[in-house]
């Protein structure tokens, strides 16, 4: 499934769009950034409650396909700017982490 297809199937809005035609290879969830750096894999969608600018650096370095913010969280203007510069896809789910993951499991992940 591509990021565009995920957006269409969930109605989760884009906070920032990069290349939305790239495939999502799996899901990773975590808020401890060292854990995410150690265990996340290229191409995964990363679910996190963190919203500060360092998540963009991690998504870029790990080459995640997208970040999924939870609980309708948003990014501040500075972080949005960094996401735009790095062409990082960011969506936001209105659900908490558990319900967000359940939705993704129902979609076949």
């Amino acid at each position, binding site marked *: 499934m591509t990021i565009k297809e995920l957006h269409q199937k969930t109605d989760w809005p884009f906070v920032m769009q990069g290349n939305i035609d790239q495939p999502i290879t799996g899901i990773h969830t975590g*808020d401890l*950034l*060292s*854990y995410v750096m150690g265990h996340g894999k290229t191409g995964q969608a990363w679910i996190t409650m963190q919203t*500060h*600018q*360092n998540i963009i*650096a991690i998504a*870029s*370095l790990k080459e995640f396909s997208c970040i999924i913010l939870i609980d309708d969280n948003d990014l501040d203007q500075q972080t949005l700017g960094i996401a735009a510069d790095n062409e990082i896809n960011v969506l936001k789910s209105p659900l908490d982490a558990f319900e967000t993951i359940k939705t993704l499991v129902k979609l076949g992940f």
Partner: protein
Amino acid sequence: MLIKTYELTADDFTQAGSISSDIRKIAKGYGMSQETIRRVAVACYEAEINMIIHSHGGQIELSIDDEWFNIAFKDVGPGIENIELAMKPGWSTADVVAQNMGFGAGLGLPNIKKNSDTFNLFSDPNGTLLQLGFKRKDTL
């Protein structure tokens, strides 16, 4: 051969990852494998964050020869009090500010060691030197 030297400011989370990102681009330019580039990025980012959180600032030096891609992280203190404890997964001295951002899980140094081909760590109150080496070709 020394390729590039980066200056790093303590406590500046706004720039965190920018040096690692640049080094990763250079690694790509040298044609290193995807797996090695991934390891370089992880180790470098953790070390960069460690310097931002724990040190008074310093320099990161990238040097490359025919076989090795070497990165040295040199800070000006205050040093790691107990290296053995610092290497233990879960041990951390990061403050609340860093913890609230999701850092300080005590996984940084173990992650760095796991992802590098050579790992040397020296520390005293005047500063810490972390030397990491990555084989440029997986087959070496």
